């Protein structure tokens, strides 16, 4: 480190909070020198694992002959459920419904049954295909319809939210309608597939490198399957090649298998599934079927909403409880429902267990609400935006602020966000021009839609809203930063380092970001629910505060000044009328035996939730945003293009505008993929046939809006005392993409002169668009 920079008085530091700093690893990303787990130097004697997968969707295992697998040259060990020393279960929620390796019964196609450990990955993969397993088929169903027809059990207790009397109010409403919306799931398609490396140590010890958003859960699960205490297990992750929720619980199986084999064979083990295995054997976003009944008046004002949210959960519960809960929490989108009754139906299906994915059920709930608005708009012959504004939550005192879960919306900035975007994007003029265009265009049609976002921030499981950080200041003034959050590309490490640089007033180059590890910060929550910087930023801030308090006390005492006269200036400290370079000051403190290390801690205030009662304050605050999209469709083929999207999004006072803009753009395009070309397709045997990028189509550069204007609401500040008054950014902008689906829907509606709601389901593949056009022609 170049110490001379400390002596160079400057007015501002590099990398303060709110600076548009580049990602801390950007330089390493572009040179290929950023290490992902598969890139780390391999321990001598490393062995490789591969999964043996079920060939049936639902069947009893009658017999299993693995002799050819075992006999393959290079194969060291083949393990089955019987070889699990502890409990053969990797359920993330303790419900014991998710075997690590299926024993008597398989419940989805490509469920892991055994694992092969071999000298090379290729040998392991080839050997795994030599198993001879006999099955007795059982009835299976892959989708929600199948589950409903077969009276499928629920994977977890459903939730109900209600306020007022929806049934009675439905009778009072001047107009009523009911309908159904199908919402597809989504594969995460993080570019780095799952991976785990386990390195055995002495006693019970095992060190695991895992591509996980939740190191503490990997630690817990490995303890569970090995029957060893958590203190023997260290889980590390420096960075992931994307997560998006797909690495919240789904890394458990790979880490668990690697750990079991490592302890048994006393060799390091690497598990890296092929993309096809990753896509078929790990969970996805839940598909939903929303059944709704709406009561409203001729103006389009909502009286009552009654809706059921059935979800494809897969074979086990995993996170389906909180995911379906969050769908209900967001079933209001931005709208006040005077009377409301909402319930979830988390259905068991013979498919891989669905899991967390950016938005965590929220997008499905909100998409349903925007369909409600569309239905009312087409029923009343009005612009959907008019219906939206009519039904927005009001300001405190309006009597229109209470959510279906009985939390008051106190920080509502919807009107300003939507108003500014409507004006900036010239929504009205463009909508009129489009209606005119459609009048004169026979086959190409256009559509435009402006949709809002209001997203509740906090884990609904109150206990998860805590975080820790570990900060060391060394004698040379360099700073070591560690916290419980994980880096999956979202720039969390950069933002937290900015918090620390800002707190100590040193250039960010002096803050060393270190890999997340259960050995430094224990009992962490998943980096999920958009909470990473809210929680870990605050924890790091708290650690810095403790160290600074000690430094101030030391300086006040040593130089005989009041504590208020000890001031941290850019890269230096002023004590009374003296100034010290930061490193010199720290050295003095060390010599005076001041503790220069601290563990910071933070827990989110105010929140509580009673699931059984359906009441509480699950969210600390809300994030807002709005998007306006314009599309063109070809009514002969259903093909479409996104012509333009304008976004205004609220991140409070941004911790890092460059990173936040990146999150907004990326989330929007990912959401657009979910609603357009990303389609999961299971065949009649229950096999997922869209299991690789050749068959599962996420957006490309040429799919993003041709004109893409993204702005942050620079005037916004979080009303709550969050770090730097910022707001969470990971998930909320995902739902901005709903504007694309609705714009396509309007283009379709033009075929029937906007008299009929197209009821366009998601994903709106060209096929679904064409079929909707055909429905309009018949309407």
């Amino acid at each position, binding site marked *: 480190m170049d110490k001379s920079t400390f002596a160079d008085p400057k007015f501002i530091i590099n990398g303060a909070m709110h600076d548009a700093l580049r990602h801390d690893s950007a330089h390493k990303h572009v040179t*290929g020198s950023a290490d992902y787990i598969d890139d780390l130097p391999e321990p001598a004697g490393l062995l490789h694992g591969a999964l043996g997968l079920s060939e049936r969707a639902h069947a009893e295992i009658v017999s299993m002959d693995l002799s050819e697998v075992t006999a393959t040259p290079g194969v060291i060990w083949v393990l089955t459920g019987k070889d699990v020393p502890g409990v053969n279960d990797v359920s993330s929620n303790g419900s014991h419904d998710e075997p690590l390796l299926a024993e008597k019964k398989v419940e989805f196609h490509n469920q892991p049954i055994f694992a092969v450990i071999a000298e090379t990955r290729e040998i392991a993969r080839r050997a795994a295909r030599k198993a001879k397993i006999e099955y007795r088929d059982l009835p299976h169903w892959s989708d929600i319809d199948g589950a409903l027809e077969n009276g499928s059990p629920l994977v977890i207790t459903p939730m109900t939210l209600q306020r007022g009397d929806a049934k009675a109010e439905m009778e009072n409403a001047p107009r009523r309608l009911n309908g159904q919306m199908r919402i597809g799931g989504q594969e995460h398609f993080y570019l780095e597939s799952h991976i785990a490396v386990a390195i055995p140590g002495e006693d019970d010890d095992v060190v695991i490198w895992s591509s996980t958003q939740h190191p503490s859960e990997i630690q817990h699960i490995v303890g569970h399957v090995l029957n060893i205490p958590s203190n023997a297990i260290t889980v590390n992750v420096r960075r992931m*090649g994307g997560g998006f929720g797909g690495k919240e619980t789904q890394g458990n199986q790979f880490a668990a298998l690697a750990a079991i084999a490592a302890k048994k064979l006393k060799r390091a083990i690497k598990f890296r599934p092929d993309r096809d295995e990753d896509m078929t054997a790990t969970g996805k976003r839940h598909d939903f079927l929303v059944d709704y009944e709406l009561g409203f008046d001729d103006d389009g004002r909502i009286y009552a909403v009654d809706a059921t949210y059935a979800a494809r959960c897969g074979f086990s519960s995993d996170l389906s409880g909180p995911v379906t809960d969050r769908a209900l929490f967001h079933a209001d989108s931005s709208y006040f429902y005077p009377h409301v009754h909402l319930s979830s139906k988390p259905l068991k299906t013979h498919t891989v267990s669905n899991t967390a994915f950016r938005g965590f059920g929220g997008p499905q709930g909100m998409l349903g609400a925007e369909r409600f608005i569309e239905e009312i708009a087409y029923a009343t012959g009005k612009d959907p935006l008019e219906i939206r504004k009519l039904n927005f939550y009001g300001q405190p005192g309006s009597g229109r602020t209470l959510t279906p879960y009985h939390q008051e919306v106190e920080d509502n900035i919807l009107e300003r966000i939507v108003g500014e975007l409507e004006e900036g994007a010239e929504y009205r003029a463009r909508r009129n021009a489009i209606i005119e265009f459609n009048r004169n265009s026979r086959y190409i049609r256009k559509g435009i839609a402006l949709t809002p976002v209001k997203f509740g921030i906090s884990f609904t499981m109150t206990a998860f809203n805590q975080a820790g950080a570990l900060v060391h200041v060394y004698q040379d003034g360099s700073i070591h930063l560690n916290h419980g959050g994980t880096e999956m590309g979202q720039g969390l490490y950069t933002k937290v380092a900015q918090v620390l640089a800002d707190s100590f007033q040193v250039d960010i180059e002096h803050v060393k970001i270190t890999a997340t590890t259960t050995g430094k910060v224990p009992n962490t929550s998943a980096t999920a629910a958009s909470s990473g910087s809210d929680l870990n930023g605050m924890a790091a801030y708290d650690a810095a505060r403790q160290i600074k308090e000690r430094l101030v006390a030391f300086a006040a005492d040593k130089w005989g000044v009041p504590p208020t006269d000890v001031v941290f200036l850019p890269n230096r400290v002023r004590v009374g009328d003296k100034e010290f370079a930061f490193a010199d000051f720290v050295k003095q403190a060390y010599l005076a035996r001041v503790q220069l290390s601290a563990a910071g801690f933070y827990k989110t205030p105010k929140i509580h939730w009673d699931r059984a009662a359906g009441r509480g304050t699950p969210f600390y605050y809300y994030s807002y945003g709005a998007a306006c999209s314009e599309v063109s469709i070809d009514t002969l083929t259903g093909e479409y293009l996104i012509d333009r999207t304008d976004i205004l999004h609220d991140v409070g006072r941004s911790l890092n505008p460059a990173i936040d803009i990146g999150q907004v753009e990326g989330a929007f395009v990912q959401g657009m993929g979910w609603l357009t070309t990303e389609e999961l397709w299971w065949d009649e045997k229950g096999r997922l046939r869209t299991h690789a990028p050749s068959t599962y189509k996420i957006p490309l550069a040429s799919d993003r809006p041709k004109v893409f204007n993204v702005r942050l609401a620079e005037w916004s500040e979080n009303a709550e005392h969050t770090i730097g008054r910022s707001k969470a950014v990971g998930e909320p902008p995902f739902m901005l993409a709903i504007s694309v689906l609705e714009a396509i829907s309007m283009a379709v509606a033009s075929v029937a002169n906007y008299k009929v709601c197209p009821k366009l389901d998601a994903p709106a593949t060209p096929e679904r668009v064409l079929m909707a056009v055909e429905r309009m022609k018949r309407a």
Partner: protein
Amino acid sequence: MNDSIRFILNGEDITLGDVRPTETLLDYLRLKRRLTGTKEGCAEGDCGACTVLVGRLIDGKLHYESVNACIRFMGSLNATHVVTVEHVAAKDGTLHPVQQAMVDCHGSQCGFCTPGFIMSMYGLWLSNDKPSRADIEKALQGNLCRCTGYEPIVKAAEQVSHTRPSALFDPLEKTRSEIISRLWAMRNSETVTITTVEGRLILPGSLDALARVLSEEPNATIVAGSTDVGLWVTKQMRALDPVVFINHLTDLQSITAGDGGFTIGAGVTYSRAFETIAGKVPTLGRLINRIGGDQVRNMGTIGGNIANGSPIGDMPPPLIALGATVKLRSLAGTRMLRLEDFFIDYGKQDRRPGEFVESIFVPYPAEETQFAVYKITKRRDEDITAVLGAFYLTLDGEGDVNDIRIAFGGMAATPKRARNVENALMGRPWNEQTIEEVRAEFDADFQPLSDWRATAEYRQLTTKNLLTRFFLETSGAPAELHRFEEVA
């Protein structure tokens, strides 16, 4: 030497005598060389995380092309220059302008796709100093990013072309003439055979040698671009032995635009064919731009697309509609076949043991004809066809249909003509009423399947609607959305 292959890896000359026939470049780089900047994202040539540049001599000039290392076999690399992301920045750590632009524009988030993007952008930077937005989107068709939404990446590619500094800075421009002479020395006119415990790979030294090898080894797998065969290995774990590589054979690499049509050598890649074809038949050029991404087009060949006989191969329907013929060669000599007759049934082509496709002859559409190709997919770019229709129309002086050829992919077990529709159209006036009346004839021509790409119902309806689109376009009415137009 005829028992090893030689190539240049970044700066280093490599000679390999122990190469498994299906060893991939990606595994070689990551496992044997510990060059871990190149990533495995999908192992099927669809995500671009493994993109590297391969430089090769074409007519004495050195061309660097982006390719997918995950499905590129080592045996296809003789006398090439393999360039990985580790070679791009200066030795002192100074970033290449392409890399610096990516950093400045915040073009990486998780960073896993980034080295692949850098290599694709670098390939573009080397070959095009004023790329349009459309050029950039095209160069990035073969790279998936799940974090950024691409906006900052496209901006980086634009920025670096605007501020293009002296080429002297560039590691590959600096060494161009030296690399040419090193590659020249590595070329081999003798047949190379490498035998390993897992099988043999053969690089015939000439077309005659290829014919000889295939007569001795009728079950050999012929590999040109490996954009399809690569997946047999990485996904189906098939063992192939022996493997005969043909991508180095210059005799298969020429495409000529003669008086009556193109003659396309079986080893000509889509990229190499593009300019010649697009110049004469623009609609076919637009189709080529929607086959895979640049990496796939730089490896995949039109000959391979025909020879493997897929019912969803994109080139056969338009070439059938144009009346193409295929030239097959074996030790016994050559024979010509109408392309239409080459496809017998699903997975079955009229290619006899020991035969290989040598070239394809494609007649130009006559002056007075109208010709169009439409590809329908779930995602616009880099997607496999759900339905592909090619239409070839000649009207007589009265405006009646004088000649019509309609061929479809994705609608049957082979690329197939819509004979019933054609017959119904012959002699009829080319107007909307005729189109409305003959649409139903498609039901007699095709009984498509439902799969993850589309239902039978959608395929059938779209097929009919494409005839309508073709009619509209021949009458001057706009009926198709085009992404690649200038953005304001």
